[in-house]
């Protein structure tokens, strides 16, 4: 059985962000602030758990991103993925979900996988679209926000539960090959092991230049990024910790909350 896990590099949530008005986009210059999307860590872990429970499973991990994104491929291999594919983009290239899904769909070996996993969304753009769009481009069934996976390889289907609203779960079966986007909390992602990291450092990822592919025109464009307005007054307390604490205590007393 072959599993593909698609992962993305994202900036740290509290990384300093600078807006570039001319390109209408947000810039982060220091690669130190980039890491694997946390939702994708759950997808990598789930693939490894399937590998540990079934015979003859191999895991490939793939990212579409700039050169520095190689770091997250090595991390995924450190966790236990067998090989890595880097679909290399130039800085400033379009990274919208449709573009990324279109690139992955053109990866030469894409038809070989029984199961494709991604995180439920990326922490930076929070669209949750790349997985479902990729499934559609490949013509395979898809389930999102998956919190339980059971693979029935001989019968060629996967049994899954999706997390939906009000504590409910949607129970379904998908024919293989299928694509699942994995919800956080499905497992506890492991840390990379030293022996796996050493192996990862020796194995170079397969590199495919996205610019060499026949890419479609982007269907949507981010015109600009702005700092959102406040929806409430937002009194900012000033001074020392003790002074802020005293002021907040008085506010709570005044509002009759204590």
């Amino acid at each position, binding site marked *: 059985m072959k599993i593909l896990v698609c992962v993305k590099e994202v900036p740290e949530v*509290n990384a300093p962000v600078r807006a570039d008005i001319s390109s209408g986009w947000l810039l982060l210059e220091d690669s130190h602030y980039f890491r694997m999307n946390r939702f994708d860590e759950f997808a990598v872990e789930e693939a490894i758990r399937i590998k540990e429970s079934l015979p003859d499973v191999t895991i490939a991990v793939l990212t579409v991103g700039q050169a520095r994104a190689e770091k997250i491929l090595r991390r995924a291999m450190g966790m236990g993925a067998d090989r890595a594919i880097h679909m290399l983009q130039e800085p400033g290239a379009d990274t919208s979900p449709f573009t990324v899904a279109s690139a992955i769909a053109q990866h030469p070996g894409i038809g070989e996988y029984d199961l494709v996993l991604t995180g439920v969304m990326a922490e930076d753009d929070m669209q949750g679209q790349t997985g479902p769009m990729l499934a559609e481009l490949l013509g395979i*069934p898809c389930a999102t926000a998956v919190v339980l996976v059971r693979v029935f390889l001989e019968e060629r289907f996967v049994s899954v539960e999706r997390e939906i609203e009000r*504590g409910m779960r949607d129970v*379904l*079966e998908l024919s293989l090959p299928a694509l699942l986007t994995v919800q956080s909390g499905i497992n506890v992602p492991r840390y990379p092991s030293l022996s796996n990291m050493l192996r990862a450092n020796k194995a170079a990822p397969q590199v495919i230049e996205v610019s060499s592919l026949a890419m479609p025109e982007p269907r949507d464009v981010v*015109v600009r990024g702005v700092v959102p307005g*406040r929806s409430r007054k937002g009194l900012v307390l000033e001074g020392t910790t003790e002074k802020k604490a005293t002021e907040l205590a008085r506010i709570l007393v005044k509002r009759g*909350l204590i």
Partner: protein
Amino acid sequence: MTPTVLLIAEQSEEDLATLSRELAGFASELAEMTRCIPLALLLGQEASSRGLELAQATGLDVVAVHVPGMSTYNSEAYKGILQEMVPQLNASYVCMVHTSQAADYAPGLAVRLQAACITAVERLVKDRDRIMFARRILGGKWEAHVASNTSTTVLTVQPGAFRPVSGSGAGRVKHVSLSFAPRSVRSLGVRQERRADAHLDAARTIISAGRGIGKQDNLEILHQLARILPNSGIAGSRPVCDLGWLDYNRQVGLTGATVSPELYLACGISGTVQHTAGMRQSKFIVAVNTDPEAAIFQLADVCVVEDVRVFIPALVEALKDELKRRRE
């Protein structure tokens, strides 16, 4: 035929009443900007009766697509049927509420329609003649204004972001019947996995933990505060539950409980839309976070830029002093 803004309603009863009216509010606003006609569509085995309810709730004309045997959502059926219906109804925009269901099929539907797909829209922005859809990125810290380059655009709308339409007469219902047999996605129904802790509903004050508390042991600091604040309860953000620090029945947000206490004290919570969707209706919000740009501060009444682990113990002392002074 005039182009339409096509609203896709969900099958479940709860959503029909509230969310569909919000979605109708959004669709009407967008239709006015784009000179389209708003129109609603609903699928399923009970579409005929639900269609009437939808027409009454939203005041919009409704296409009720009766699909025999389809008792729950099925992505293959939704995509297959909508792929046919959307061009027939001349939809320039296809919109739904950003639920787990819409998130599941909207991107795939967009690919089939060769349409742009923009999710979790919170605001419509018109700049000269260009319409842009505002949505949060980077944990809610920034708002991106996204424009579509395609003739059809699929949109999902953040729950709670748009004002519901107030009923002014019912629309007309057109009944359609279609059959669809999914082949690769077999729906086996839904089941209740857990219920939100009933204490959260009743609590006057909710003290909510985010990843910023650092480690599970630090929850004790919040418990110390809870012991002083009457009728208070401890809750948390999804990452805290994913880490196993709190049970999922204490999770506040899109995939957890929706609460509106007198006081919501957000401790070390960044404030992604997934979280704020569950607490934005709170009467009074106090946020404590080390990051002065954290999204949670955008909707806080009081902002405290501090480390929770240092600030909450100081707050406990200050509250004790206040109580002592009151007794004297």
